[in-house]
């Protein structure tokens, strides 16, 4: 097994009021490790030296829970496409590399400590309308409404979003359009979600603005960095939905 000697430059910030800085750490890894296991090794050695380990978030380590979040050498979730930080493996790095690790940065994602940020803004956007209003027990038979396979599949593509926030971190304006539009599309495409589509898009977009996310200026860096391949077509769909919902309400109002 080949070991590699790496230099890590990691963002350290003790809390929201600390200014924060990059600190340098040497670490030895091997190509079979995952990126997070490499950080585990670093933390174990920091603890053995009675130093404060680097705070970072993770849970499933399978690319599905959306918890892990780091900017690695300038890219959210690192260099590999369609890959979350936890799925990144060290075989994509080589001996002697210097790796810069920073938190997802956005006004709406304040730093809690080191690489840990607060992404509750995403929850509040969902609370604003990212659901179908159906109570437990109210549903009709699951096969009562057939849904075209193709449509179901497109809804699924949008529903695959893991709420990680890489799109925001990738965007020069820290816009959350990709995340929000993924939920709008997922639900608007399905007959079950159509009923509330207008109300939903307005409420979610308003909340997104309130949270302090930036505007979309069609850079599409979000799509490039999204680990789940969420397409910017969703943003176009959301814009259409938004427009038609406001037109609709003007006509009615």
């Amino acid at each position, binding site marked *: 097994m080949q070991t590699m000697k790496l230099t890590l430059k990691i963002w350290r910030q003790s809390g929201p009021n600390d200014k924060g800085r990059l600190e340098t750490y040497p670490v030895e890894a091997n190509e079979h490790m995952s990126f997070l296991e490499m950080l585990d090794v670093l933390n174990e050695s920091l603890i053995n030296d009675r130093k404060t380990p680097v705070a970072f978030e993770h849970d499933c380590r*399978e690319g*599905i829970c959306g918890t892990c979040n780091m900017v690695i050498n300038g890219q959210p979730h690192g260099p590999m496409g369609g890959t979350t930080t936890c799925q990144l493996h060290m075989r994509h790095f080589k001996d002697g590399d210097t790796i810069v690790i920073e938190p997802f940065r956005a006004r709406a994602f304040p730093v809690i400590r080191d690489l840990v940020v607060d992404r509750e803004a995403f*929850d509040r956007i969902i609370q604003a309308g990212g659901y179908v209003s159906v109570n437990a027990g109210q549903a*009709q038979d699951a096969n009562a409404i057939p849904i075209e*396979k193709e449509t179901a599949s497109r809804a699924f593509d949008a529903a695959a979003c893991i709420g990680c926030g890489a799109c925001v971190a990738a965007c020069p304006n820290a816009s959350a359009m990709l995340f929000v539009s993924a939920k709008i599309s997922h639900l608007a495409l399905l007959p079950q979600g159509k009923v509330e589509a207008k109300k939903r898009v307005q409420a979610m977009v308003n909340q997104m603005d309130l949270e302090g996310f930036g505007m979309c200026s069609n850079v599409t860096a979000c799509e490039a960095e999204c680990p789940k391949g969420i397409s910017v077509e969703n943003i176009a769909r959301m814009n259409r939905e938004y427009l038609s919902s406001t037109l609709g309400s003007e006509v009615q109002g």
Partner: protein
Amino acid sequence: MMLDGKIPAGPLTEKWTQYKSTMPIVAPNNKRNIEVIVVGTGLAGAAAAASLGELGYAVKCFTFHDSPRRAHSIAAQGGINAAKNYRNDGDSTWRLFYDTIKGGDYRAREANVYRLAEVSASIIDQAVAQGVPFAREYGGLLENRSFGGVQVSRTFYARGQTGQQLLIGAYQSLSRQIALGSVEMHNRHEMLDVVLVDGKARGIIARNLVTGKLERFGAHAVVLATGGYGNVFYLSTNAMNCNVTAAWRAVRRGAYMANPCFTQIHPTCIPQYGEYQSKLTLMSESLRNDGRVWVPKKKEDAQAIREGRKKATDIAETDRDYFLERRYPAFGNLVPRDVASRAAKVACDEGLGIVPTGLGVFLDFASAIERYGKSKANSMGLHNPERPKIIELGEEVVKEKYGNLFEMYEKITGEDPYKMPMKIYPAVHYTMGGLWVDYNLETNVPGLFAAGECNFSDHGANRLGASALMQGLADGYFVLPYTIGTYLANDIRTPKFDTNREEFAATEKEVRERLDSLLGVQGTQSVESFHRRLGKIMWDYCGMSRTAEGLTKARTMIRELREAFYKDVFVPGSANEFNPELEKAHRVADFLEMGELMILDALNRNESCGGHFREEFQTPEGEADRDDDNYAYVAAWEYKGWGEDPTLHKEPLIFNDVHPSKRSYK
């Protein structure tokens, strides 16, 4: 003491319906004044919190995650069972019930399991109404597939992300209740104790993980939906933060822990490759629909593969042992998990393992790719297609079915499973044991309920695939919202609980002392290193096969490890800040106690059943030898104090409607 499961009277098939229509309920105007705490936002917790909110209760919901959507349920891949019989293949409520009871090796309660099968169909209806994008056929109707231990196709799925989509559905319903004000959500709050008032659960102490502050919350009832304890083994398929603390703290307050030794070892996981490894990755059971499990027949071949001198494809068809198909012709590769895992272990113990550590077998898709390729070529009107075309078409079909799993495998191992068989080995996956609950999902502590994986209720000694999601959502959407009313109906005049009461202050003080004592050791060894050692003891002696001798030894080892922990652990930082190491230390401390209880339970159960395999108790063919005369009971353990032996309470399992038979998949 004999435990009372409070199973309602009447015929099995009518118990739930009759009980539901006669149980006490709380009027809407009273619900608003009744508070319920739900800890956990996985399928069970999110569904329960949302449904209780919809009913009008004042709910307070907690998770240690940064968002309710991160709960471990999100990682479930393969699917969810329901007795819909959409395939017209003879499925029914009864058949789902029977499969589950049999799959659990007759160590679950009939009435609970029947209810689970009964409400299963409504779960699918509910999920579709929420916008869960299940797989569909060209006609627009829902698609199904098969899982282990059954002969019908009743598993609904959403690509390989079923748990994610179901959890997002529940999370959305929960979010709606949060917006409506009926659920007060507390993210990044870890429950560290239950508060009892006059012997009833009336609140919790939670640590705000951002500030480190201990906070008190009162309620009329407390629901734990805090998941399983598979991470006792350190390496498992569970998410890194899954832990037993909530359940264990309830045990320390008097709740009984039932069947703790019933652990599920899942046959298809990516084998371990290094010491620094942090977790194991599951390859969904759905793969056994199409993957064939094998090892070489000859030890020389196995050795050559281990040493990299030969590849799987170099082994001739006649030199391969498809051992599941050989040993279990009726179910083949789709035998239940416990059976498949043990068979893989047997093959590797014989020296036939195919990875460098010796602990791995093949899961091969070549036949499926060819079969699908031919059938797709046919459907496209291609006659006599070339082999490469067949393979190409076959790979397309397999990709559509399992694409994301194949991708995940390739990301981790760097090998392409379309070209080379996957290498797999069993790993700890699920815990059937959990808090003892009665038919109402209430523990023996009044007012303390447990739902989802954290209770013991439905899976006996072995859970069938795609049944945990079903149980979590059944508990959360359709069972608990009713049964909790039987308790709360007596509480409509009870005012809200003032958290300045002495009981809250005293419990908070105990929690603070516990945290301070962990920080106070200031030893030299990391928390992680203790957890790793605990995991190894558990895996070696309380894993896939167990002996009285090994278990006895392991008990001593754990006690020594625990002693070392409290003498020499090093936890950096303080209690009044964001401190992940402190969180971990508290969890590992509880694992160190839970592990010992699992060992005691395994020692007590002098039989083999389901996931619990005691080497002393097996048939001449090496199958589990169950002892219904002496062990047809739920073992519920009562905590008796630090260093004391716990007391065993037995709930006899009475089978009126199915006759426990020898479980055979041959």
